[in-house]
């Protein structure tokens, strides 16, 4: 394989959302409103985004709330379709938008390991091979057959994280949810991502934690109202970002 092969290619991607004024539609409203488009707003969460992530690069996406970061991450993860443009990815792409996805309180720790890990693309066999490691790492050996609802919050979080450490990915998409939790947990996550980065996994990270962005990523993309405002080495982007928002005239 060539070194310049891109792991993620985003080509002039735009995404529009249509927001009905009312949350839940009924059939009657649909029939009455069939001939009009009233009662709906639309907005563009992303406009003409283009960039390329070479294999092995670690890229952060920063921006204020509502700048389109999560939408972009979901489009790369395949959860949303772009309204225009396209995304190409190479290798196995795994989205880590939340820990413990699909966890079922009434099922045992063991069942939840298999369930959650399969959502991250691990086969049954792969999970079986890594099962002991997961249980050891989460320190729940005595509780694997107990229902998850009997676990403490800490145990459940450890289990969720232990499963994610076994993910096999070429491209890992991480949302800031990983940074929640206590300090020790955050450090563990950072440690884990550094290890992945050093093993050549491309990481696409959405984060508010600017010092971490500089520490972890070689490059940062600054999204502002759905457009790329800056795309440069992480240190430069973070500096410009901080300067921009600390300047009083651009507050709000």
């Amino acid at each position: 394989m060539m070194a310049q092969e891109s792991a993620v290619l985003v080509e002039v991607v735009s995404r529009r959302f249509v927001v009905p004024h009312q949350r839940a539609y009924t059939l009657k409203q649909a029939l009455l409103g069939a001939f009009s488009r009233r009662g709906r707003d639309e907005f563009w969460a992303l406009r003409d985004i283009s960039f390329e992530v070479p294999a092995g690069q670690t890229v952060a996406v920063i921006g204020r709330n509502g700048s389109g970061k999560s939408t972009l991450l979901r489009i790369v993860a395949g959860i949303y379709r772009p309204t225009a443009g396209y995304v190409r990815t190479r290798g196995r792409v795994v989205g880590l938008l939340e820990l413990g996805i699909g966890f079922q309180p009434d099922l045992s720790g063991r069942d939840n390991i298999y369930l959650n890990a399969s959502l991250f693309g691990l086969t049954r066999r792969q999970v079986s091979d890594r099962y002991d490691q997961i249980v050891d790492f989460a320190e729940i050996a005595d509780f694997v057959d107990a229902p998850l609802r009997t676990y403490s919050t800490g145990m459940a979080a450890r289990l969720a994280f232990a499963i994610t450490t076994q993910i096999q990915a070429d491209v890992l998409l991480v949302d800031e949810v990983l940074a929640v939790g206590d300090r020790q947990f955050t450090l563990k996550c950072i440690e884990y991502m550094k290890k992945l980065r050093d093993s050549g996994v491309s990481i696409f990270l959405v984060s508010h934690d600017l010092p971490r962005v500089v520490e972890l990523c070689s490059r940062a993309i600054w999204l502002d109202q759905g457009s790329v405002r800056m795309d440069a080495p992480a240190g430069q982007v973070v500096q410009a970002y901080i300067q921009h928002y600390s300047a009083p005239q651009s507050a709000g």
Partner: protein
Amino acid sequence: MGTWRELWEYRDVLVNFIRRDLKLRYKSSVLGFFWSMLLPLAQVVTFVIIFKYIMRFGEKNYSVLLMTAFFPWMFFSQAVLDGAVSFAANVGLLKRVYFPRLILPLTTLGSNLVHFLFALLVLCVYFAYVRVTVSWGYLPLALLAMAVQLIFTFGLMLLVGSLSVFYSDVKFLLAAVFQMWMFFTPILYPASKVVETRMFPQWIKSAYFMNPVAPLMMAYRALVPLNEPTKILASYWQFFGLSAIVAILVLVVGYVVFRRYEWEFAVVG
């Protein structure tokens, strides 16, 4: 096509989801399975008391007549009613992780099918107990009917599942429709009663048999002699063909609607 290869790659998710549904339904115990059978069995007992002893139906083996159609019907209605919320109830999951969306209705169909097969075992035990003779010659027809039922069920699931993401009242409407639908399908009574009655003109009788589920129930009943005069089945066999055509059409429409809206499921919730 890429869709099928992708589904195959995600087969472990499907298997894990089905296991999850069954474990939650049975609470991981054998006794749990019998608890889950309690409601349908209570219904069967009630119908038997009403129609055999109070209404004096006079059918031989009424309980057998009832159960041969009632169990497949329960599978059908439960799968479609569950299918109505298979996307809507999982929007949180759809927002957080990518997997082929078809996995969700396939999970609902799969877990309901496994449950139906377990229920069939109960049925077989009962039939052995009351010494029912089985006309094995009709087994291919019954299996064909089950294939049609699966196609029809999955098509309806895709259709109502996709719609109920956007329209919250679909599932309420469905509950009412299925209630009526059961009574207008030969389940509580043999189809011959409808053929023989003088209350209805011929066109109403024909309309009755255009119900795509009716010929399927008659096919299941053909397995047990005396259950459904096979004469009637023979003269209404063309409705079986119609049923198969409707089932395939519904699957096509359901799949098209699903394809049209699947990318909105994670957005709407």
